[in-house]
């Protein structure tokens, strides 16, 4: 049992990571996937890997595509974090075979776990770190000092090209290994150390003359975080911990006599660190919002309403999701005020130069029949993605809007691209069969309905006059119940009761079997405002 204790700890850690991401943070995983599109093409490989750290970015993107299935994504994260820990354990135990401090090797993985709670942390970093640790492990296996020196000086720049700024971890680990494991202070070690440090300090600077990229990113790395600007602490916390753990292994004296105490204290420490990491990283509100977004994206309208019945959403994004679901389930006119409603932003949020909110708004406009506006919001969301990745979700939506608009050549272009992915291929193949086939499109309930709803007469869309836009849409197709209910909801939320009263009779064409409850309340209110005749 004792001999397998490290493996058992790793397994338990892996299970904990998996459980967390698979059952408590699954919508974060799903969220990650939608902001990239991994393609099995040579061009995609070239495009991704043709910059510093490109190989790690490519592999990170490859792994992220599997986040389409959150449990698979959780498994991938768990395995990668365990690999990081195992590699650090390998390096550390090689340096000092008898040690009672093995649980320290979990620290970098726990830090990374915390970082991965942030939806903008990319998989590139974990992959880059693993490649770096593998390179350092290989260094340890080279017996000859001069060969090691050559390997360090030759491989460090190559590693830099593959993984970016994290290559400094390889250099510093190699130096640590040289002095603590090989206990070598000969000429080869000195040359290796000086050469390594010079490479660490000057290589990114030298690259800045040839590579067109900001200097700070050449030093720190690309694609570790979705936003290009991120604090140095983000990188250093993980890099320093990875180099420090093997040093601590050697430096901290063994407490053989107090082995039980030592292990227990570490275990408690690791558990506390995990608790702190998750307390600090876990964002329940974002998980909730992402859950709503997932349900909307997968058209699970009933589940949105059921979820809201347990706890009413209160952010503009999730309220917009709920209202869409209420409209799609036919509950909006009766029950929208059963839930928290703030203002019209919860119906049709205003445009923001952002990559999240416009996606939700695009869903609402799409279901209403404002196909061009839905297309615009989806396109803008993809354009606003800070790491310039293409989005599988958006390309799918753009293929649909172009299909509905009869722009088959553009739809074809997007579908051809989606065909080169794993998880969007099925959709692409199915939709490809609809192109230039009016009969097939008209037989599709969603596309044919949206074709009937979309405006036929051109006008310039005005966000400041959403009621006018909704009115125009409804007048075009008086069976468009959602447009009518959004129009009425808009007047109710803005308190424009006069317009509500004016437009209320238009609802006749919808064919309600009763006056919707919300409208009854509004009419009662209006009735009280009219002076009673004596």
């Amino acid at each position, binding site marked *: 049992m004792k001999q397998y204790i490290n493996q058992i700890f790793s397994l338990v850690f892996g299970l904990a990571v998996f459980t967390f991401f698979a059952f408590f943070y699954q919508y974060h995983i799903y969220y990650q996937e939608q902001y990239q599109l991994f393609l099995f*093409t040579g*061009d995609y490989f070239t495009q991704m890997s043709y910059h510093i750290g490109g190989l790690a970015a490519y592999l990170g993107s490859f792994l992220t595509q599997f986040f389409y299935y959150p449990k698979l994504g959780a498994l991938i994260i768990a395995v990668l974090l365990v690999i990081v820990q195992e590699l650090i354990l390998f390096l550390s135990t090689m340096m000092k075979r008898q040690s009672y401090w093995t649980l320290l090797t979990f620290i970098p993985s726990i830090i990374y776990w915390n970082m991965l709670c942030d939806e903008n942390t990319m998989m590139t970093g974990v992959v880059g770190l693993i490649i770096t640790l593998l390179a350092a492990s290989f260094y340890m296996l080279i017996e000859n000092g001069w060969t090691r020196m050559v390997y360090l000086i030759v491989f460090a720049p190559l590693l830099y090209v593959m993984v970016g700024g994290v290559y400094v971890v390889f250099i510093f680990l190699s130096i640590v290994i040289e002095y603590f494991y090989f206990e070598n202070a000969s000429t080869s070690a000195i040359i290796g150390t000086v050469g390594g440090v010079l490479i660490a300090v000057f290589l990114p600077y030298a690259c*800045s*003359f040839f590579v*067109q*990229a*900001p200097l700070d990113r050449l030093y720190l790395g690309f694609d570790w975080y979705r936003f*290009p600007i991120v604090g140095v602490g983000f990188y250093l916390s993980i890099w320093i911990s990875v180099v420090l753990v093997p040093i601590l292994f050697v430096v901290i004296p063994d407490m053989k006599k107090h082995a039980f105490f030592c292990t227990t204290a570490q275990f408690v420490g690791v558990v506390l660190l995990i608790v702190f990491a998750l307390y600090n990283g876990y964002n329940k509100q974002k998980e909730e919002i992402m859950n709503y977004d997932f349900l909307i994206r997968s058209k699970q309208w009933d589940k949105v309403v059921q979820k809201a019945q347990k706890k009413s959403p209160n952010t503009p994004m999730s309220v917009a999701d709920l209202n869409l679901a209420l409209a799609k389930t036919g509950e909006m006119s009766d029950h929208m005020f059963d839930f928290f409603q703030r203002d019209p932003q919860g119906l049709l949020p205003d*445009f923001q*130069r952002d990559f999240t909110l416009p996606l939700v708004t695009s869903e609402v406009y799409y279901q209403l029949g*404002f*196909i*061009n*506006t839905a*297309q*615009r919001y989806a*396109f*803008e969301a*993809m*354009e*606003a*993605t800070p790491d*310039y990745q*293409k989005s599988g979700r958006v390309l799918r939506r753009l293929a649909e809007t172009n299909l*509905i*608009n*009869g*722009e088959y*050549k*553009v739809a*074809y*272009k997007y579908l*051809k*691209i989606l065909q080169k992915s794993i998880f969007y291929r099925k959709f692409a193949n199915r939709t490809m069969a609809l192109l230039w086939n009016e009969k097939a499109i008209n037989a599709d309930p969603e596309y044919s309905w949206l074709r009937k709803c*979309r*405006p*036929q*007469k*051109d*006008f*310039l*869309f005005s966000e400041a006059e959403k009621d006018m*836009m909704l009115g*125009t849409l409804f007048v075009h197709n008086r069976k468009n119940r959602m447009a009518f209910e959004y129009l009425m909801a808009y007047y109710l939320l803005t308190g424009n009761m006069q317009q509500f009263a004016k437009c209320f009779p238009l609802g006749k064409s919808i064919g309600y079997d009763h006056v919707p409850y919300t409208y009854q309340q509004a009419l009662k209110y209006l009735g009280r405002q009219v002076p009673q005749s004596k």
Partner: protein
Amino acid sequence: MKTRFYYILVWVIGVFVACTPRPKDVNKLSVLPPMYPDYTDITVPYNIAPLNFLLRNDADAVECLAQCGESVLQLNKRGHEICFPIAAWKKFMNEAKGKTAEVKVSARINGRWVQYRTFKWQIASDKIDPYLSYRLIEPDYEVWNHLQLVERCVEGFEEHVICDHNLVDNSCMNCHVYGNQDPKLSLFYVRGKNGGTILNRNGKLRKLNIKNSQTISSGVYAGFHPSGRYGVFSSNIIIPAFHAVDSKRLEVYDTKSDIFVADFDRNTIYSCPQLSDSTVLETFPTFSSDGRYIYFCTARRVDLPKEIKRLKYNLCRISFNAANHTFGTKVDTIYNARLMGHSVCHPKVSPDGKWLVYTVADYGTFPIWHREADLQMINLRTGTIDKLAVVNSNRSDTYHSWSSNSRWLVFASKRDDGLYGKPYFCYIDRAGKAHKPFVLPQKYPAFYDDNLKSFNIPELSKGKLSFNAVDIERLMKKENEKFK
């Protein structure tokens, strides 16, 4: 040992030759090959990069045979793509310069060889300027992403970035324009906090704030005086709007716009009431090839956006005296929008001064988003208009510019899918006759299928620019030179 080496070499070559499928029992068809890009029956400059193409069918082997007298260029490939070796291509094109080559394409489909109708490549001895600059941008609405100004060698496939938004504080940038197609005379505008007009003149880069208290904004559309000392600019307040119906996406219009001339030696701005009338909109200025006139577009103000369809621009010109930087008092109307029923944009005079090419659209000032936008060419001596039927498509054709020898025109066309603009080249022969255009060749013929960027404002140049994106990054940290 040597014999053994040659034996192995012959064996290896033999294996390769044996593996390359060659046509047999060919069935001749009367149709042209379904090639993409469409390089059938076109006129190309002898110095163009290889016209690599693919067949849009189920071909698993292709043969392309181009023949011009004794010169032959033959390529047999597995798959459905033809990518010519650059050395063989250049040799063939040099031999065929000024002549017409016949091109035969054969393909193996489901095990059977077919040969398509032969087509022609007319290989013009008029050289095209070897470099092309453009702005790579997604056909977006308001938000842009990964914006770059790029220079490409059209004799090969090398590209280099001349400005990258990552290196300029994520700022947006306007397109890059040359003066006299000279790589030592060009400019572009970088927006944002530290933005300014980047002027590349005689090997020196400057960052200018070409604005004074009289101008509406910094320079937007620009053109150089042939001397290089002056630039003519429009200053515009630009508003985007969004269409609700399928075939239209974006509308961009000006609520205000004026024209001014900037003196790069004295850092001074000059204008005149005819170019800065607040009751009309003036834009798209460009100098004539002798520098004695400024051509520009002008429209009477209407109630925007309500009356956007009534916004139609005339093509006008006004004289300019570079010696004392004065303007004429009379404005000539070259194209009357009211009479002709169209709106004119982007006038560009050929360097030999004979022709002026402009874009016509139904209305407005942003033809790249107007499907009906077409190019037209006016003979500046006779005033006759050529509607360039062979050049235009049923999608937007605009953003044109000339080569230094006035024989080649490059423009952005959305003819493929209606959304993504690509650079097309068109030969204008000595008689002024336009020939069928062809798209900028790419190393991988499927490039345009996967590419999600538009090529905006393609401009030709006689040589390579002397700066790159890192030079611009450094320049952006400097203070702007002010204008008065």
